[in-house]
């Protein structure tokens, strides 16, 4: 069997289907998107080549940079919320009563489809009949905020369900990582007189550093290309106050019939995501890998 696997042709045979699929579904469309970005194209009539005009327009487009700001803000918020998830996972993984139940409770939002989450939060945020404003009314606040209609708070209001939706996912990842650390390490530290806090900071966190890095990349890139809840809940509005890069791309391409420009935004989005991934890897790179042994 080893001999078969070392035959280059056989390797090629096995790798080929997956390679072809990923080429056809991911890489070729990416190249095509870059190509469309150089075109003036309404999606229906023939394309005309306009060089880098779309990208020039993009650099000067105030609405686009607004959406970039919103996306970056979301990325920062999601990255910071990872700290909270770490704490929760730390508590859950130490054998407290009912940790199993809590783990499941945190995971449930992730099992719901984005549209269901959006509908749920639309009801919560409803200006007159919503749970939120009914509660605020009940405690005597007469003019509670109009969550999704007020341009100054809509962005914050929509981040809450986004963070809420993914909390369970990250908590689960951290929980599994903490559980993977051999109990003997913590035990040895305890015998040496380390406090639980010291064990957490000095032993457990360094041991799951690789996992944390991955989640930071996931959270940041996921936020940068985020689309679903924004699309369902506000459609980027009111007046672009909750527009993010992906929703702006969608509006330009599918609402404004400007597929050339939309493709340019899409390609730019890809570059931003790549740059951020690279930067995070670079910043968090450590010389030595800490291992359990």
């Amino acid at each position, binding site marked *: 069997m080893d001999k078969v696997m070392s035959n280059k042709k056989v390797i090629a045979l096995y790798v080929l289907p997956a390679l072809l699929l990923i080429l056809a579904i991911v890489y070729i469309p990416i190249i095509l998107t870059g190509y469309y970005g150089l075109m003036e194209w309404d999606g*229906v009539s023939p394309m005309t080549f306009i060089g880098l005009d779309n990208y020039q327009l993009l650099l000067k487009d105030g609405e686009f940079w607004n959406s970039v700001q919103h996306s970056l803000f979301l990325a920062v918020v999601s990255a910071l919320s990872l700290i909270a998830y770490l704490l929760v996972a730390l508590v859950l993984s130490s054998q407290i009563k009912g940790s199993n139940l809590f783990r499941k409770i945190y995971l449930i939002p992730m099992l719901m489809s984005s549209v269901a989450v959006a509908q749920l939060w639309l009801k919560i945020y*409803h*200006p007159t009949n919503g749970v939120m404003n009914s509660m605020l009314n009940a405690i005597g606040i007469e003019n509670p905020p109009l969550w*999704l209609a007020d341009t100054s708070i809509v962005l914050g209001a929509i981040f809450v369900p986004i963070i809420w939706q993914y909390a369970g996912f990250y908590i689960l990842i951290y929980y599994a990582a903490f559980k993977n650390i051999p109990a003997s390490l913590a035990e040895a530290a305890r015998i040496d007189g380390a406090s639980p806090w010291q064990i957490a900071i000095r032993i457990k966190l360094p041991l799951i550093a690789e996992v944390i890095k991955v989640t930071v990349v996931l959270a940041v890139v996921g936020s940068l290309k985020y689309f679903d809840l924004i699309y369902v809940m506000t459609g980027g509005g009111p*007046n672009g106050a909750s527009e993010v890069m992906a929703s702006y791309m969608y509006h330009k391409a599918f*609402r404004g019939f400007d597929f050339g420009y939309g493709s340019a935004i899409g390609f730019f989005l890809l570059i931003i995501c790549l740059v951020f991934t690279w930067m995070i890897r670079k910043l968090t790179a450590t010389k030595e890998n800490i291992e359990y042994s």
Partner: protein
Amino acid sequence: MRKTLLSIVLVLAMLTVLAACGNNNKANTNTEDNAKVPANDGAKVEEPAAEVAEDVTINFMHLWPAGGSPTQNQIVKKIIEEYQTANTNVTIKTEELENEQYKNKLKVLSASNQLPDIGVTWAAGFLEPYVKGKRFAPLDDMLQGNLNGKFVAGTTDAYAIDGVTYALPLELNIVPVYYNKELFANNNLEVPQTYAEFKNVVKTLSDNGVAPIALGNKDRWTGSLWYMYLADRFGGPETLKSAIDRSGTFEDPALIDAAKEIQELVKMNGFNKGFNGLSNDEGKAEFMNEQAAMYMMGTWELPNYTTNPDVAQEFKDKIGFFKFPTIDGGKGDLNSWVGGPGVGLFVSEDSKVKDEAKKFVEFFVEKWGEHSITEAGVIPATKVDTSTIELNQMYIDLLNELSNASNLTLFADVQMKPVAAETHLNMIQALFGNAVTPEEFAKKHEEALSAGK
């Protein structure tokens, strides 16, 4: 040795799979051929004409899924069944999508040149790119043929570009203001005849803690209706039309006044709370729950106030409508309406069964006219003889209004080209949200419209 053996086995295995596929295909075509021959023979014996009628499949994509628009869905099914029984060689395959998804899918399909044989389209600006891209077939031959004189005058114009008609309208909608008679009576209010009276109604309702107007402006075109009426009543129907077709300007004082008036209404708390964050359905709910007293919407809402069995009769009895009042010193006329043809049917230019598809469209348009008003409460674009069918009084009133209409202004976002329409809709939301001044509002429109995209 073993290595080569294994490779050979693998290659053989793959070859068999491929060969099997090939065989299957062959087998299929064979059986089809076999099946066709006797069928043709049989036809020859009985009726030589049937020989021409080959089996055709027509793909039809529409936006009335059984969940969202059950009555329309039923009508479509009925018409298709009727057609298929009359033409046994035709199979009509439908694909049903909800409005927004439908629009998106149509664009994607069009980009890859895979439009269905027949589909639903909107008028004017929506249609234009498809026509420019030569995706829709011209249908003038049908209008001059059997369908000549069947449509309400002028309704097909909105589907014509450079004098050629590319789709046939199914519905015709005008936009009245619906109001809740009980809420009006409770507040000692009467139907306003002038805009000053209308503002008084808004003020009284708002002072008494009733939301005067239900609006869901997340969808943006809903707010656009209000702006269009004000623009019409201030400047007359031509001002907005000429601003959009570029023979005039959007910085016309009447159009700026209309924008000012919108912000005035917002300042008076004329609309329900948080309207900019609510969808049309959520805004409508305020009216249906009797929390808001007025609601401006197209005649497609009529079933909710007349025939829809899901709405309580008690509520239906409370609802009336009035025409948007005129403004003192304005040029607009009380009988000028915002509205226009709703959706229409197109035939794909690249369809392989174009002639069959056209025949079906012709059949569909006529049957739709018969079914839609009595069953779905939709006002069809084809002429209706009100004397022969029994209709709810509200329909008769509106059909009469329609025949008295002095002007019909097509929805602004439909009149404009896609990029300008997007700007218009965003600006509407900004205007209602007090994020722009009326002057900026006009300037942004002027910029977008003169860019010509």
